């Protein structure tokens, strides 16, 4: 399988703090297309920081990132934003939906931003995404009217909005009860099959990690184990 995302000696330090902290040190990660990767490790080990770097939300202090063999380490913020819009989707621990917008609108926003489809097509596509995740009855509800599991599913639908190549999830089940958590895990696992995208998920739940094709363990910002 072709390599989707690759990093070389990726390091992120917070220099401004009173005591400089190294969040991620010398990380070499490779995510192949259609792969389901888990990043695990104890709290504060730098799992999320690594995920933000992979998701181009944060810039590394040193090291390089390649997306489909293209060095994007020096891309401008705007180019990175465009890349995120077209190729990536995010799911966070807290659902992070826009509270003023309905489920449907939340899913439509990235599509409208990309602007590849007409308004009508966007509406149909967004409704399909939500229906796929069992939210057909909730498309016109505000996030505050949904349960935790439902919100997280809307967030996944939103992440999938522009058919990204890479889904990055930061403890997507961290805030959910067991039933919803199970449900979300299943959905993510299916995405790899149904949408053919790669999924990188940060979790400290060993069971969740076991479902993945590969697990990267990180301790104190350094990758200690890949299995």
């Amino acid at each position: 399988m072709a390599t989707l995302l690759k990093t070389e000696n990726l390091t992120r330090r917070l220099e401004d703090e009173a005591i400089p902290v190294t969040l991620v040190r010398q990380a070499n990660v490779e995510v192949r297309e259609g792969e389901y990767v888990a990043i695990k490790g104890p709290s504060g080990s730098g799992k999320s920081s690594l995920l933000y770097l992979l998701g181009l939300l944060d810039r590394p202090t040193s090291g390089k990132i390649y997306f489909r063999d293209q060095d994007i380490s020096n891309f401008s913020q705007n180019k990175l934003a465009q890349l995120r819009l077209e190729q990536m989707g995010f799911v966070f621990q807290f659902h992070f939906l826009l509270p003023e917008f309905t489920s449907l609108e939340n899913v439509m926003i990235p599509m409208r931003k990309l602007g590849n489809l007409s308004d009508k097509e966007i509406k149909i596509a967004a409704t399909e995404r939500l229906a796929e995740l069992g939210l057909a009855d909730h498309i016109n509800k505000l996030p505050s009217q949904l349960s935790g599991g439902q919100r997280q599913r809307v967030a996944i639908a939103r992440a999938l909005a522009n058919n990204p190549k890479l889904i990055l999830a930061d403890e997507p089940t961290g805030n959910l009860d067991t039933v919803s958590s199970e449900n979300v895990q299943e959905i993510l696992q299916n995405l790899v099959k149904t949408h053919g995208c790669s999924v990188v998920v940060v979790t400290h739940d060993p069971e969740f990690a076991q479902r993945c094709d590969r697990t990267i363990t990180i301790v104190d910002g350094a990758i200690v184990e890949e299995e």
Partner: protein
Amino acid sequence: MRLLAFIALKHLLARKRQSIVSLMGIVLGVAFFLAISSIMQGSEEDFIKRLVDNSPHITISDEFRNPRVQPVDRLYGDKGIVSISGVKPLTETRGIRGYEKILVYLENQPDIKVSPVLTGSSIISFAGQEKGVTINGMIPQEIDRVSTIRDYMVEGSLDRLYANPDGVLIGVTLAKNLSLALNDTITISAQNGNVRTLKIVGIFKTGRSGYDRSQVFMNLKRAQALLGRINRINAILVKLDQPNQALLRAHEIEAVIKYKSESWQEQSEDLMSTLAIRNKIMYTVVSAVLVVAAFGIYNVISTVVMEKHRDIAILKSMGFPASDIRMIFLIQGVLLGVAGNLAGVPLGVIFMRAMEEIEFRPPGSTEAISMPVSWGMEQFAIAATFALSAAVLASFLPARKASHVQPVDILRGGL
């Protein structure tokens, strides 16, 4: 862009009360701005209209701004060959030389109406009293072209001056002072000793007491005879189709005919500068209202930005660049500005209508007048533009701050 506007609108609608309060600032600002500027503008226009209507737009007098150069100096002046000292010019009757030619020249201009006039001082005697007056010798049929005196006639009429070459029009104050009435006969004597007996055929009242006391209108030929200046005039009064052009046209005319041509602006320069200063003060004060309103907008958008840090982080993670985020909050400023105008302009119009209804009696006036309100488009434009730009400027700082939000900082914090 439509998407950004949609997001911006949702943010504002989500906190209706706050948005409405800050909107009220702009609405009241625009309304007061309009109310005050319309009354100031209106009173100024009213004032200038009176000024322009009641006086000639350009007065050409028998003076030169610069003394005339002797012919010999004109020919040899810079050569230093010939010099003449102690020149004693011939004493001649004062007046505008060759005024007929000048009149023809002026009358050929399409936007100009002219009438020659001979003014001079003389004394009216009646019942043992004497009053110094300024006589205006004019061609009766032409008075209407350059003067609005017809509108101010209270007794008799201007037309009677056409019929009676020995008629005279006097002001109401003068009539009162000398206990004169219509059809009375008065004696006017000039400085040169000439005396004429004239009949009062009309009495005017302009409301300006100095004018009503001292100005007298009579037939040009009679005035020339009285003042001993046969076939002379000493002023040409000019009315323009476009009074605002007076300054420019006066320069043009003077360049051609050389005689001093004064526009009404030049004649009332001090007054005009007072009005200009008054305008500056007014706009400063009214703008302050809108500046205060702008702080309200700054406040509400700042609050939105603070509360929306998390949403900004989400939008950025989705792939919205910083410029989009900035635009969202700038649009909020624009929305508040536009909404402020949409509500503020009608409210301002209501204020203006209400002020027009107010009638009052100025001191010394016999008639009640309503407040002069100007409906000029430019003040609407100024109010709307100012309100809109204040709103956009006020949203600029919070918008910039929002665009600088780093998604990672927010995501790390968890909330």
